């Protein structure tokens, strides 16, 4: 089920909340958690019930392995070492993800490398698999290192499937979540959290439905449909995608955090105005924060620790490798690998500059960072190498700057006519509004306070009330066509 659907907002969410608090009020706390697990699985199965056994299998497997790892008392009795169990658990998770996410990519590459003709398996990626797999990988590592102990299958299953974060994060840590599910004060309806949660939810919904979805048709036309793009079209396409991705994913994250709050569960924030970043290191502190933390903790650190000595060069290699892997985690394709490698390389350059204490004016620093990020997202969005090159060709002016028709009949007055946008952006089916939609979205991302800042300032007042009513009504009325979140494909 999607957050941006009427059935979620008017049926699923209110019912889940009402029954949850009702059961808790009757002191049926176990039943309340069981209810939450049930609705989460229902939420997951709404999309395709076929994959329900898959997520349940993954949960049971990891719960068992985690239990074995945490059970240090019987350590001596065990025939196999804890390390062997961990390695087995991690391998199984990676193979599981590998089969569903990377098998066809692998076969495709084998085919083109050895000129073979192996049939693709046409595996459909089960929703959320990348997220629930890495959440559980972190859990296994924590269990191995003695940080967590979980003796309750219901709690564990709830931790993994809790529907606000299940499909696309934020990526959670067991030791941050479980005390919250167990705390008694989480079990009483808290009006402050409820109102804050609704506030965040509707901000997120607005970002998704009103901003991100409005940009999607231009992005599709530019990336998927057009055969070649001129300079203006290519930049409009690429900047529109950069905005779409941010408003889509941060909108989703706001909604997730908001829904969590309604259940008195604090989920970690995922975004902090990433496009305001003044260097790439800064960008990764602001973009998909829960993933950055995961990469630093569970990829970068073990890689660095495996080096004989900790040197600057080793840590640069570790960063590059970690970002490379993170790129591949996003999707089974060379474009994602290139994207990850580009960010890895940029981080290495950035750390080198930092080490040499190279300073530059803030605006220039921002400008370079933003353009790097924007260009890198072309690889992130493109379905393949050719498509990326098509967009880059346009962006670097290799296909001309503007259509001939525009300077043939150019006059300043034309700019204000509705025909202007249509001729200018003919290749991507654009209109005048295409320009200002993109510009407005960009300015929103760059100049306005982000949802974390708004949450901190949140005061229940008539003004806030009016604000929420206006954006929620406007959004709900515009929610005609339901569209999936971009991050669901990962």
């Amino acid at each position, binding site marked *: 089920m999607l957050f941006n659907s009427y059935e979620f907002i008017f049926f699923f969410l209110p019912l889940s909340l009402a029954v949850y608090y009702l059961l808790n009020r009757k002191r049926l706390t176990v039943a309340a958690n069981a209810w939450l697990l049930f609705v989460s699985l229902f939420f997951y199965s709404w999309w395709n019930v076929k994959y329900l056994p898959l997520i349940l299998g993954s949960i049971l497997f990891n719960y068992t392995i985690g239990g074995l790892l945490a059970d240090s008392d019987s350590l001596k009795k065990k025939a196999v070492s804890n390390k062997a169990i961990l390695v087995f658990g991690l391998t199984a998770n990676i193979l599981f993800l590998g089969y569903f996410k990377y098998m066809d990519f692998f076969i495709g590459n084998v085919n083109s490398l050895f000129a073979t003709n192996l049939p693709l398996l046409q595996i459909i990626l089960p929703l959320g698999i990348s997220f629930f797999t890495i959440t559980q990988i972190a859990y296994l590592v924590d269990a191995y290192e003695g940080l967590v102990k979980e003796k309750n299958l219901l709690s564990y299953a709830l931790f993994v499937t809790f529907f606000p974060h299940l499909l696309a994060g934020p990526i959670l840590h067991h030791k941050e979540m479980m005390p919250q599910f167990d705390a008694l004060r989480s079990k009483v309806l808290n009006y402050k959290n409820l109102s804050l949660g609704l506030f965040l939810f509707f901000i997120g919904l607005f970002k998704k439905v009103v901003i991100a979805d409005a940009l999607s048709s231009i992005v599709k036309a530019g990336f998927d449909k057009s055969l070649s793009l001129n300079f203006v079209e290519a930049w409009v396409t690429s900047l529109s995608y950069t905005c779409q991705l941010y408003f889509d994913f941060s909108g989703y994250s706001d909604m997730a955090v908001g829904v969590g709050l309604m259940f008195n569960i604090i989920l970690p924030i995922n975004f902090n105005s990433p496009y305001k970043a003044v260097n790439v290191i800064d960008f990764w*502190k602001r973009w998909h924060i829960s993933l*950055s*933390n995961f990469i*630093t*903790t569970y990829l970068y650190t*073990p890689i*660095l620790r495996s080096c004989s000595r900790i040197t600057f060069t080793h840590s640069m290699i570790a960063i590059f490798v970690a970002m490379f892997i993170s790129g591949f985690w996003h999707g089974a394709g060379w474009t994602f690998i290139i994207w990850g490698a580009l960010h890895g390389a940029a981080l290495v350059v950035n750390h080198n500059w930092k080490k040499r204490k190279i300073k530059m004016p803030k605006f220039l620093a921002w400008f370079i960072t933003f353009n790097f990020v924007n260009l890198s997202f072309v690889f992130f969005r493109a379905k393949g190498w050719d498509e990326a090159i098509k967009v880059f060709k346009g962006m670097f002016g290799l296909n001309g700057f503007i259509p001939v028709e525009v300077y043939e009949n150019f006059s300043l007055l034309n700019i204000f006519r509705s025909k202007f946008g249509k001729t200018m952006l003919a290749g991507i089916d654009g209109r005048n509004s295409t320009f200002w939609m993109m510009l407005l979205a960009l300015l929103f991302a760059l100049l306005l306070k982000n949802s974390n800042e708004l949450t901190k300032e949140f005061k229940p007042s008539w003004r806030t009330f009016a604000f929420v009513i206006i954006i929620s009504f406007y959004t709900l009325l515009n929610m005609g066509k339901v569209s999936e979140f971009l991050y669901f494909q990962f």
Partner: protein
Amino acid sequence: MDIIEILNGIFRQVFDDDTLVVSRATTANDIEEWDSLTHINLAVAVEMKFKIKFALGELQTLKNVGDMVDLINNKIARQ
């Protein structure tokens, strides 16, 4: 020597700054160079000095020098 004094030495070494003085309340915001990567380098240097080992999942929870001191104490006591 006090744990915090030893830590001060490690901080000076990792951040390459001989004037650095840390207290329990020092956070990443007080030292410009302290980012998520130097954080790990710092942790690894601490591990070597005190002959302890941090769990991966513990590293993100160390928000200031005080947290670090407490965790080090904890680990030494458990040995």
